């Protein structure tokens, strides 16, 4: 179904630890995320935002309940399906997680080569174009060690977006960026939503960019306590 929402979470529970130490982190979460929307996940530290992000993003096994991601059920999904689904997603982590031995361009190329499509030349052009968009045209061949924190985070953004993901998951992507480039990144995600239908789910504490959000979901102690879903 083309119109189906890209993410539908139903009755989602999640537990950490075993035996005595077993502790519930997510309680009966139900969320339907619309295609092309820019969603902020907010709430105090330890409220379960990251856990929800990793469950929706196919990075963590669903234990109870259901996550329907891009038309596929994640509950009980095998390794092979997870790998294929992840290729349709883009992740921007809190830490940049760039590969230290790869140049900025090579790091971005990694986001493309996972699909194994396009000639080496096409891939190179796409990677360089993307780095240009995040303002790093003059830093393409730098190793991460030679880049500032903000520049590294922008390389990570370029890597996440270069392969035209259908959904972008980001955990405080603007934390390492100055006000202006933080806003630029979020504006870019919003524009991608409006022009290409890219859906974004982003954890943020950044009040300066609140007005860009289509929807703000607030969590506390593993539950959604407010949601301005239209």
């Amino acid at each position: 179904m083309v119109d189906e929402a890209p993410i539908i979470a139903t009755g989602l529970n999640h537990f950490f630890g075993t035996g005595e130490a077993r502790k519930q982190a997510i309680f009966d979460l139900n969320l339907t995320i619309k295609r092309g929307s820019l969603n902020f996940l907010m709430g105090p530290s330890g409220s379960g935002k990251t856990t929800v992000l990793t469950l929706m993003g196919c990075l963590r096994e669903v234990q109870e309940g259901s996550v329907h991601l891009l038309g596929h059920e994640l509950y009980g999904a095998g390794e092979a399906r997870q790998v294929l689904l992840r290729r349709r997603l883009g992740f921007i982590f809190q830490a940049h997680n760039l590969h230290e031995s790869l140049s900025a361009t090579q790091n971005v190329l990694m986001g493309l080569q996972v699909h194994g499509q396009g000639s080496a030349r096409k891939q190179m052009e796409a990677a360089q174009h993307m780095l240009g968009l995040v303002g790093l045209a003059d830093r393409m061949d730098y190793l991460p060690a030679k880049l500032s924190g903000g520049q590294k985070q922008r390389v990570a953004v370029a890597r996440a977006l270069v392969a035209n993901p259908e959904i972008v998951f980001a955990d405080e992507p603007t934390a390492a960026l100055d006000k202006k480039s933080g806003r630029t990144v979020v504006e870019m995600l919003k524009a991608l939503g409006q022009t290409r239908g890219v859906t974004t789910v982003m954890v943020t504490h950044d009040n300066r960019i609140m007005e860009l959000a289509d929807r703000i979901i607030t969590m506390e102690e593993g539950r959604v306590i407010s949601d301005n879903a239209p």
Partner: protein
Amino acid sequence: MSRLLTLLFGRLPIGWLQLSHNKTRLAAAVAGVAFANLLVFMQLGILGALNVATVAPYALLRSDIMISAEDTHTLTDGSNIARAWMFQALGVPGVRAAMPLYVGNLEFKLTDGSSSTLQTFGLDVAQPDFAAPAIAAQLNGLEVENTAILDTKARGIPPEAFDGLRAGEPFSFEVNGQTLTAMAGIEVGGGFTADGTLIVSDQTFLRFFGKRSSGAPNHILLQVDDGVSVEVVVDRIRAAISTDSVIVRSMQAAAAADRTYQTTERPTGIIFGFGVLIGLIVGIVIVYQVLSTDVADHLREYATFKAMGYGHRFFLGIVFEEAIVLAFFGFIPGFLVSLGLYAGLRAASGLPVEMDATRAVVVLIGTLVACSISGAIATRRLAAADPADLF
């Protein structure tokens, strides 16, 4: 390098980039592989020399069949054998000629103090057919008592000592208080049991080995009629000589058995064979250490790649790429240094320690396999890369 590998793999050569990023680790790993290669090459070089040196004396003789005492493993270690068997064998159809062979070691000393242990063959000068052509041509000269053909490559004797002999002048020397005169030279060189070779007549041999008798040679050599199968004649002789006290073998089988004995039953062979194993294990351990540390150091990056949708095969590819790079980079210096050490060992010991293409290829393949095994073990650490831990 990077560009070449990109073309080769159709992707970024992450393994290579990762290895070359940490130069110290790369150097240590390459040195480790090179060292393991060196170990293996040296052991194989010595084993190879043992093989060559063991069968070399057999090539001095021309014979189809050899009859020896049943406790014989080498040309010299068995009991003596009754010459009477020779006459029995001569009666077997297909046997054309026979010759008793006397073998023993003589200590050869020069006045300058240098000395050499010579493996001495006593041959029947009337039967030059039983000697290799180079010896056969000179055999007449040995009819004169106390004359010899001397190995000019004998170990322990300065080569200049033989300058005169090589120019055709007889060369006299003392053995066991008697004078021997070398009429001609041959080039054989030292092995593991003797420093060189000496050829004398059976008469001269018995003179120098006082306790030996003409009725009890070390071996009996036989030649078969043209067009007759050696194995068929061997079987006939075995049937004719019904005793457990002698063994009848083709000359080839005897040489092969000697070689097997030297490399698998004698301490020298076993020690060096074991050394090959040690080298292999050293290599596997070093490469495993390097690769598993490298995996552990990059778990975050690998977890990130997992989150991006890279599957298990991709990570195996990285680790194996690293293993192969290390194998090649380690092999090249290991091989080159081994060539140098071979030359040194040859010069110092006179042993036929030679590199051959088969050995080089086998060691390269072995290195690739060993590195891949290390890589395979190291990949078990990949499981620790969990993308859920990234946020």
